């Protein structure tokens, strides 16, 4: 176990394609729901406790050694929006490329072979963490953090928001991320004993709806 690997994996510069995605922030900015640091914080908080919890638990379960193909199906079942399923697989495929170069493993190769067009990103993230020798809770932290760091970075670009304020939003969410990651790891542990139905299925319907609309915009800055 090599904890510092978490820093590498969670680094916003880890080259896995995330920079082109806003995590739903672009449509929220267009609709006026995100317009300053306070509304960004509200958006991120909502995302963390819904999509974030679900992604974190999937990642923790994959890091804990649960079958990634079954987890991939569980992720599909928890992602009602076809646009977001496509995005999750695209990002999963891109992360897989980076993961196989950084922490190569037979398990990553096997998932890449079984899902050449990409498995859901949180599942790949969990398996990447596992290949890097990280624990399920580390994977949960990483997945949970990504669900809020993505929109915060995007908001800086979309609104020319003060980057210090945007980063402060993330810092203030840290205690909540602790709780979400802890809960996700706990539920992943339960899923190992009781089956995948123990994984959370929290979702944010507005994110699903706006993601569908956003996918049809002719001009946009972010891919999702």
């Amino acid at each position, binding site marked *: 176990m090599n904890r510092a690997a978490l820093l590498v994996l969670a680094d916003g510069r880890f080259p*896995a394609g995330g*920079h*082109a995605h806003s995590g739903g922030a672009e449509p929220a900015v267009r609709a006026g729901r995100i317009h300053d640091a306070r509304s960004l914080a509200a958006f991120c908080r909502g995302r963390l406790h819904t999509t974030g919890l679900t992604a974190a638990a999937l990642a923790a379960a994959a890091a804990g050694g649960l079958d990634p193909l079954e987890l991939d*199906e569980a992720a599909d079942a928890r992602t009602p929006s076809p646009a977001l399923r496509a995005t999750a*697989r695209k990002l999963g495929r891109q992360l897989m490329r980076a993961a196989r170069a950084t922490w190569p493993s037979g398990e990553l190769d096997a998932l890449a072979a079984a899902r050449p*067009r990409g498995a859901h990103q949180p599942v790949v993230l969990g398996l990447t963490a596992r290949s890097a020798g990280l624990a399920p809770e580390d994977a949960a932290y990483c997945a949970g953090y990504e669900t809020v760091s993505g929109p915060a970075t995007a908001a800086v670009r979309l609104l020319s928001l003060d980057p210090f304020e945007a980063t402060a939003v993330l810092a203030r969410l840290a205690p909540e991320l602790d709780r979400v990651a802890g809960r996700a790891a706990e539920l992943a542990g339960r899923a190992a004993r009781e089956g995948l139905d123990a994984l959370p299925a929290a979702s944010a319907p507005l994110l699903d709806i706006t993601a569908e609309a956003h996918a049809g915009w002719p001009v946009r800055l972010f891919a999702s």
Partner: protein
Amino acid sequence: MHLDHSHSGPAAVSADALRPDGRRRALRIGLGGPVGSGKTATVAALCRTLRDRLSLAVVTNDIYTREDAEFLLRHAVLPPERIQAVETGACPHTAIRDDISANLEAVEDLEDAVGPLDLILVESGGDNLTATFSKGLVDAQIFVIDVAGGDDIPRKGGPGVTTADLLVINKTDLAPYVGSDLGRMARDAKEQRGELPVAFTSLTGEDGVRPVTDWVLARLAAWTA
């Protein structure tokens, strides 16, 4: 079952020069440079001259639209399945240099769909003079500037002008109208680039892209040798 995609062979990991079957993969050439200098026009002209001889594909990286891909489609320089647009989150330089995963995916998809390919042209939506392509994405890069952007751009240098494998100075037909001194641009480019080649082009003329075509074919010959 997962819901919405089909299966094919496992994906390659990185920028390996060989395909999984051991053959040499397509040569990948990047085209960068400021907005409006003629990158898309160069790509279109290269496609028109080379498409009957080579198996070609194009990846575009736009800033926030798919205009470059749409231009190429509208002008039918290649069949649509040979053109892929990558979305860059408003940062084409990130997508071509710091995080090339979406571009590599596009390259891989093109090889899967219409391969084996001989040559893939990767255009970057221009945003500044410092944007260069990662060596993990392309094997060689062309930096396109134009005479109308000011004849002091070669003198100012920057990574694109200084280090690109080929510097194209385009729109020479406009030089008289904008008062650009081509001799000075050539001298400044030489100063910045030493022995690296420079091509002056005017894409409005008959076979105006010729110097670039010749360079690309020479690279391709070296690649497949």
